[in-house]
């Protein structure tokens, strides 16, 4: 048995760079050309200064897992469980949620990540 295909996001002006960047090996996060801050999920203007001068920026793609859950419930027929859903505070992207107190959790998350969760 294998999991059903993942739902594919419909592309539009806001989300295209994020969802298609992976084809070039890039994690694109919308960044403001005026204040330098990031907006995610992406919008067509900066959520910090309302500038329309925003563009996708390729970020490092590393970060700290600040929380995670192991999901055991099949939310669709055939969905293979368990799998991990982790939240990552991206390096170099302020507005994420890194906190040294989560380091223990983060380390554990990294280890599980290396083991190769099937769906995340």
């Amino acid at each position, binding site marked *: 048995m294998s999991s059903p295909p993942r*739902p594919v996001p419909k592309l539009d002006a806001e989300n295209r760079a994020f969802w298609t960047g992976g084809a070039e090996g890039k994690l694109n996060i919308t960044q403001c050309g005026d204040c330098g801050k990031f907006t995610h999920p992406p919008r067509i203007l900066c959520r910090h200064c309302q500038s329309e001068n925003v563009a996708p920026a390729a970020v490092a793609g590393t970060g700290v897992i600040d929380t995670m859950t192991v999901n055991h419930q099949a939310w*669709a027929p055939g969905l293979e469980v368990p799998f991990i859903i982790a939240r990552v505070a991206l390096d170099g992207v302020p507005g994420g949620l890194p*906190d040294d107190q989560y380091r223990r959790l983060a380390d554990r998350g990294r280890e599980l990540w290396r083991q190769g969760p099937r769906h995340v």
Partner: protein
Amino acid sequence: MAREAYVTGVGQSEVGVRLPRHPLLLTVDAVKEALDDAGLTLDQIDGVFSFPGKSAGYLAFSPVGTDDLIEVLNIKSKWQMGAMEQPAQLSAIAMAAWAVKEGICRHVICFRTVYEAGGMANPAEYMPLQQKTTSGFSQWTAPFWATSAACWTAQYAARHVHKYGLTREQLAQIAINGSKNALLNPRARAITKEELTLDKYMSARMISTPLCLYDCDRFSDASTVIIVSAGDALDEVKATPIRIAATAGSVDRYSWDQVDWPASYDCGPDLWKNTDYTVKDVDTVQFYDGFAFLPITWLEGLGFVEKGEGGKFIEGGTRIARDGELPLNTAGGQLGAGRLHGFGFAHEAVTQLRGAAGERQIPGDPKVAVATSGGGPLAAALLLARD
């Protein structure tokens, strides 16, 4: 002279699982009971408020709109409001309070009808992962198989576990307490049939760590109605009025993966801003428990305990029991009495403050209660008092 707002009537339909009765009829049942309770008639009603109103793409979740009631009950409404874009379920009652204080309405029907147990007969509605494409909010959840609020709430709960040491044994007390109280609530009979034990809880299957099966509320079919009246219209009412002493809400980004902690932590302090009451005056709390973790966020957010101390407070279950220092979810909550989606908490708070809760009535002539709703980025709270 500033007007006050009061709850003057409460009503509830039968609560069940896959009830054969149409959700609109369940709503009318609840309205009739609330009107009878208040001693009001339909021609005195001039407002209809709900959360989130009818949800066309999601009828099991919200099958009845304010326009449906205005139509079938022939209500001459001055103001109606049913919308998702509010800070959680009880905001409908808060807005009704504002409407009567403002003099726009005199008696407002507030309702929440759910048909989620019946809706399970149509699982396609609950299986967004079977759709080939996704857009809007769900594009940030469905591609990661994270379509359930269980997965989202679990992420907050996991942080509490790791930052503050919340244990499963502590978390279990919310569900166990709910089951005990539900057994004394006649309307919860279809939902809870026996007391939950710690052993049964600890051996239950996991849904999304650290939340197990018993940490998730139970789909039900039901309607709950709260009638809100203006303080200068109380001579038309026969029931003991319960004053809405304060209201508060908070809305964070509608983006669960970008929100630091549930909005209850922002909403909590605001509830005390416009009242002389403090947490010390509160006799019972009815805290939204769509998941067992959420009442902990309300205990901490409202200032009953410091942030991080909620697990210790509920440990052993004695403090939150009916005869404890802060009786919690005395009708069973959503874990024990069904997912009434927020309105059950206001219903029970009023019932306790009137001394009308029968076998589950808490001792000590309670005069002040808090009812809350929401989890994640949405939160709303009511402070209710018997003068």
